[in-house]
């Protein structure tokens, strides 16, 4: 049986969802047997491949790079999973939304800076006006709420997907 091409992506999130993924103990071996991890912050591949079966996204869409990636990933992925509250609701990253990007950048880089206060304008991708959930930009197939979702929930969703089933959290999934 050919292996499922799996990718995981880290956008505006704290990486807690990836940590929770790793937290599923020995069950991760069961998953590792069935997948090719073709892109992930956990491996050293730099470019997102052309065709992926399942992509799991952690984090909100918060800057121009996130947005570009989201569209590219969607175009190259069969099943797109929004993992965790930041991807699903925008969660904590969205708490900046009511202050505007200028206010947020000034707070971070000017008001609180002791040495050489200036707002970076090179290399770092510009912020979007608001951090917003993934599904407001591209169609999402599976939502896994939680901050972070439990390792059990992540395992059950991934195991379902690998077996070709539609994931069902049976009412366990919860915001927060």
């Amino acid at each position: 049986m050919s292996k499922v091409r799996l990718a995981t992506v880290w956008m505006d999130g704290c990486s807690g969802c990836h940590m929770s993924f790793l937290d599923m103990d020995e069950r991760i071996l069961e998953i590792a047997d069935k997948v090719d991890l073709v892109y992930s912050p956990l491996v050293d591949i730099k470019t997102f491949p052309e065709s992926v079966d399942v992509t799991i996204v952690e984090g909100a869409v918060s800057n121009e790079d996130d947005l570009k990636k989201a569209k590219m990933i969607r175009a190259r992925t069969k099943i797109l999973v929004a993992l965790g509250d930041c991807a699903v609701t925008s969660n904590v990253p969205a708490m900046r939304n009511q202050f505007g990007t200028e206010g947020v950048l000034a707070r971070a880089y000017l008001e609180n800076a002791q040495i050489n206060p200036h707002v970076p304008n090179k290399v770092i991708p510009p912020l979007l006006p608001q951090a917003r959930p993934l599904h407001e930009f591209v169609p999402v197939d599976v939502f896994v709420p939680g901050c972070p979702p439990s390792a059990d929930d992540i395992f059950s969703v991934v195991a379902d997907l690998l077996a070709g089933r539609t994931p069902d959290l049976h009412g366990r999934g919860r915001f927060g």
Partner: protein
Amino acid sequence: MSPAAPGVVTFVMDGKDVSARADQTVLAVAREHNVAIPTLCALEGLSTVGACRLCLVEIAGSPKLQPACVLKATEGLNVSTRSERLDKYRKMIVELLLSERNHVCSVCVSNGHCDLQSLAQSLGIDHVRFPYLYPSFAVDASHARFTLDHNRCVLCTRCVRVCDEVEGAHTWDVMGRGIRSQVITGLKQPWGESESCTTCGKCVQVCPTGALSEKGKSVAEMRKRRDFLPYLTQMREEHA
């Protein structure tokens, strides 16, 4: 068959015959029969306002949905408490509530003990289909013991009613219209400056979300204690 005793009615709920006192609401009868109807604004011991519409039920022969918390049990009524249509509206209501303010469950004092959060879970809501508004709302921490976070308020008016009807202070009210509505203390003074507030904390305990909380509580630490309410109501009824 003998006629029903005075004040007792028989009606159909989800295809089953049930009997009730004529002064009971369909919600009360449903609870007696362990039929779960989601509610948010209703709270036993307070007056009913029918504000949140989560408890809507279908009535055979009527195109209009009715809130079970207000609807009185009447002879011959035929109600359904579950259907695809009701499910659709209930989900929509909770999703709209989530999109209208900044609930951010993960960093809320009430995380894990919140009526809104558990409603979303029990209705199977795994994302919100409406664009989030991310409005700009303040936090009033001027009171010595309690905090009001408008970002988490669902405008159920439980606080307004408990303060008026049980404590008798009427510190709370609602100002504004529609989506701009907001709960206020006094004449929109900072809560800490309210002269009518007795600091009894009843509003905090009945609030379904983390909008009202006790100071000093961190994320997920705010558990509400509502047992006082049925007790006070019962005492008042018995000594009326």
